[in-house]
């Protein structure tokens, strides 16, 4: 019955705090806005993600303690990588999104959030990215030589399987 001990930050305050935080950092172009279904969504360049995550984790006001999820999606001939961060103290989530071209290299963020070690391997395997700065950059779920399954160009059945 609404007994949560955490006081939820409202979205506008979060946007203001992120803007203030990014003023001090060397972050390139970024967009931050409230989207109806996801909450606050921050879009930025792939090379700035590591700095941004580091700042989010270490910031005394934001305190994003957890990386809840990391995954990709094939949109418009690009791979959109999504990071969902959570602050338990402030009871709020923020979604970070960056876009990578096909066959690009993806740099690991595991040294900031250890939660990323395994999902990163899955992401790179499923979208055909090459994984950098990772202690164990092997495939996670499937064997070598298989196509990147979650790209739209990979069909769930081959022509041989359908037509014989």
């Amino acid at each position, binding site marked *: *019955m*609404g*007994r*949560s*001990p*955490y006081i939820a930050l409202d979205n506008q305050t979060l946007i203001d705090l992120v803007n203030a935080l990014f003023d001090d950092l060397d972050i390139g172009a970024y967009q931050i806005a409230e*989207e*109806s*279904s*996801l909450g606050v969504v921050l879009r930025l360049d792939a090379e700035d993600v590591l700095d941004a995550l580091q700042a989010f984790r270490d910031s005394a006001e934001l305190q994003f*303690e*957890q*990386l*809840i*999820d990391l*995954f990709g*999606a*094939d*949109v418009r001939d690009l791979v959109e990588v*999504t990071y*969902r961060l959570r602050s*338990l103290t402030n*009871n709020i989530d923020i979604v970070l999104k960056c876009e990578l071209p096909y066959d690009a290299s993806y740099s690991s963020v595991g040294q900031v*959030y*250890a*939660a990323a*070690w*395994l*999902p990163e391997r*899955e992401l790179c395997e499923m979208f055909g990215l090459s994984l950098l700065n990772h202690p*164990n950059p092997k495939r*996670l*779920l*499937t*064997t070598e030589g298989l196509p990147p*399954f*979650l790209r739209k160009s*990979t069909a*769930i059945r081959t022509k041989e399987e359908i037509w014989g």
Partner: protein
Amino acid sequence: MGLTDGYINPGWLSPEPPFGITVPRNINRIADDPLQLCTDHYLLNVGPQHPSTHGALRVIMELDGERIMSGEAHIGQLHRGIEKLAEHRRYHQLATLVDRADYVSGITAETAVALATEQLADIEVPERAQWLRCLMAEVNRIASHYMWMGPMGLDSGAMGIFLYMQRDREAFIDVLEEMTGQRLMFNYVRPGGVRGDLTPRAEQLLRDYLKTGVKRMQEHWDSLFESELFQVRTKDIGVLTREQALSYGATGFVLRASGVDWDLRRDRPYDAYDQFDFDVMTRSNGDIFDRMVCRLDEVRQSLRIIEQCLDGMPEGPISAKLPKVLRVPEGDACGIVESARGEVGIHIYSDGSDKPLRMRYRPPTLYSLAMAESLLPGMLLADAIVGMGSFDFCFGEVDR
């Protein structure tokens, strides 16, 4: 615990390593103490058929005697491409797929799909449907907890408790079968509501169980948790600190056993959870024992929620009126629920058609797997078997 703890120099060994012994790769240990017994490191495959891996997990361990130097999990034996298949299914059909992901507590994953779809399509769910979802999720949660606790007894050397847990689980599986027609793959929660109403027999079964539920929990406590043998095997072993739990993205009972007071049902209430009175059970040590006690405590809270559901179930329709083929507007949405194992999040991208562009299933136990991997170095092999079991991996959802 340091890597060399537990090595005792018996005193009768000659100061020089015996002739012919192979120098282990970890040469520093010899430099520290030349009297130590040196053995070859060897590789051991645990799984994928080992019973304690609770599914299809293969761990390659490098062992020095009984102590694990490093361990690497190899997964994917159960990979069926559920996320890819979801791109070829309509929104009503997604529940069938995610049932196969977390095959022990399917209701929660179905609820996450329904929540994400409802956010995208802006669907209002009738109140009775929300209450039925909560009721079924709690029934399923208890069944899942007991399914895990019994085999954990087996892992740590207690046979009898497995049979008692199965007896109690059967009572809840009967309810699920009565309500959904299935014992595992329920396909019960739909976008907009649920598929079937509460039947009088299901209510009677639950009321009957509630009369004895707490007494049975006491039985479990007395026969397993109070046992000294069990406590020796589980206390202060596999300790996951609060910082590690946060950094590795722990959710659910793993996070709560490490002392973080967080439960999505209370802190991000979905469905009707804001109307129930229940407590979030936390423990402070983060060892195997605490993870087990935490889940046993949760069974008690789930019983409380079930009782409130049965007493206060509102009248009304059980599903919103929806078209046969659901088309949702473009965009993406995320439905998060508290599953038995942690947070299940379903992230759906829609391109405006009748099928999702992409569905992401956030598996809580994939993140637990990384935690277990990080705990392995330094553990004894026998402890590692119990330790890995204590995270309750469900390989249907780790591999998807």
